[in-house]
């Protein structure tokens, strides 16, 4: 679906896909009764850009050796990745109705064993950047030309292991590693400035010998420009600070600290979250 966007990118068409993603993410979380909605919605434009505009992938062969890797270190944002993988054809759309259900292939936190297209298991925060670094080093050892992308949460960046990986990637000049911080500026107990500030975040990453970019994580052109620039960096790893809004596009949660994980108890709550999207959306699963 949305193959035409792969052939010929248009921001208008991408907007349509983003709307559909926001519906699918909200719908799958509502169906499961709870889920990490805020940090999934903040990544919609970034993930669509990666899977429709930037990354080399082959959905028919998820572990194709020449693919670019994506490691979603903030593993709780699984729903946005599942939307991308389903719409790119890694698995049937119907799977999107099974988030967190008994025996599901789509667990709340991403799992490389269970889900086609998931490169690394994540969810216990702080580990993904190290894994991405390992994958990038392996690519260098073998002289391969693919890139390893890694999306790190801002709250996740409280973990010390993130900075162990930052220091070592800078030391080894691992330039096939492109990290993105989803800087929606909120974590579970409050804003990042209230809990543990990351500022000055750009200076921090620069001090670790990374090339650093900032982008508007909801602006197609800016995303494309900055990720392309990050890919072009040679001789050091690149970090893109993506300024995003937690819960973006769903008025019931947008910009709210409480959007990290919501509970949906009944049909009334379900309708509230769907209506809060502010637009009509067809069910993509072939059901009423």
């Amino acid at each position, binding site marked *: 679906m949305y193959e035409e966007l792969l052939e010929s990118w248009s921001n208008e068409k991408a907007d349509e896909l983003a709307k559909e993603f926001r519906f699918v993410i909200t719908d799958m979380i509502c169906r499961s009764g709870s889920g990490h909605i805020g940090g999934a919605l903040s990544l919609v434009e970034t993930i669509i850009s990666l899977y429709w505009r930037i990354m080399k992938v082959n959905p028919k062969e998820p572990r194709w050796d020449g693919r670019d890797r994506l*490691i979603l270190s903030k593993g709780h944002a699984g729903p946005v990745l599942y939307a991308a993988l389903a719409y790119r054809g890694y698995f049937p759309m119907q799977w999107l109705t099974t988030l967190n259900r008994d025996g599901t292939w789509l667990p709340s936190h991403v*799992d490389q064993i269970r889900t086609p297209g998931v490169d690394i298991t994540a969810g216990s925060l702080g*580990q993904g950047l*190290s894994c991405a670094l*390992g*994958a990038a080093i392996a690519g260098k050892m073998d002289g391969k030309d693919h890139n390893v992308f890694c999306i790190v949460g801002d709250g996740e960046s409280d973990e010390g*292991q993130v900075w162990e990986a930052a220091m070592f990637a800078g030391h080894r000049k691992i330039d096939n590693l492109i990290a993105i911080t989803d800087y929606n500026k909120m974590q579970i107990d409050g804003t990042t400035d209230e809990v543990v500030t990351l500022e000055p975040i750009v200076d921090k990453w620069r001090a670790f010998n990374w090339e650093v970019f900032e982008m508007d994580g909801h602006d197609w052109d800016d995303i494309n420009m900055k990720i392309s620039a990050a890919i072009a960096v040679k001789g050091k790893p690149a970090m893109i600070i993506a300024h995003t809004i937690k819960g973006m596009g769903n008025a019931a949660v947008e910009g709210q600290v409480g959007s990290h994980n919501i509970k949906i108890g009944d049909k009334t709550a379900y309708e509230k979250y769907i209506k809060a999207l502010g637009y009509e959306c067809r069910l993509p699963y072939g059901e009423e």
Partner: protein
Amino acid sequence: MSWHEMEMRTVYAKTLNELIAENPDVISLEADLGKASGTFPEVSSKNPGNFIDVGVAEANMIGISAGLASEGKIPFAATFTCFASRRVYDQIYISCAYANNNVKIVGTAPGLTQGSNGGTHMDFTDMAIMRAMPNMHVYAPADAYELRAVMKHMAKTKQPTYLQLIRSKEPRLFDDNYVFNPDKAVILREGSDVTIVSTGYMTKSSLKAADMLAADGIMAEVLHYPSVKPFDEIALVASASKTRKVVSVENQTIIGGLGGAVCEVLSEKCPTRVKRLGIPDKFGEVATEKYLYDKHGFGPVNIVEACKSI
């Protein structure tokens, strides 16, 4: 120089070089303890492209190893047992075992062999920690030949594995023909009066105790477990059915490690009286090995006493 004339860490490093020569996907990782593990400079100078020293950052080392393994590499990540297990439990649990990434964790200087580093560095829980983790195999070879066989097996199998590596020179028990099978215990001595079950560092003491017992006319059967997980239940049940008395000996806490495995199996499949020797729910301290053996009661003399009194 024969393998048994070298320190085990030298054997580890030289064997890694052999494995790298056979398969360039084998990678040696260190967290600033390459000299202690024997890989620096033995591996770092001979195979610099296959050697990664991440600095004092064990969590990062485990994550990098998982990423390497996800790309088909075969990482051997080594550091002291305390840092290789308790410090990075969650990293190993999620990035290696749960994700089933083919990472080989190597814990060096196990248990009381940490000596003068004392209680902070003396880890008695690594085997219990690792054994409780699904997918994880746990190996503790006793001599240089067994170590080499175990490492060759590890390099050929896709299996998250924890290897307990004794750094010192160890007495020879096996030879170059030794074949490691993780599903099999090794019967080092047959006997009918009592069964001594041991692993890794303690097997030489078990054999010494068996000699002392033989002098008193007591025939001990010595079962050596190079693999604590998987655990060869058949060999244990067969021996316990014969002797009806089992003494387990390990260089770590008696809770959840080898002794735990022995009791779990026997209580379900062959109820037998068992005496567990090892560290009895205590922390370590700076001391000589003899002092610690005596204090915690699991040296050869204690094994003999246990076998006689059980």
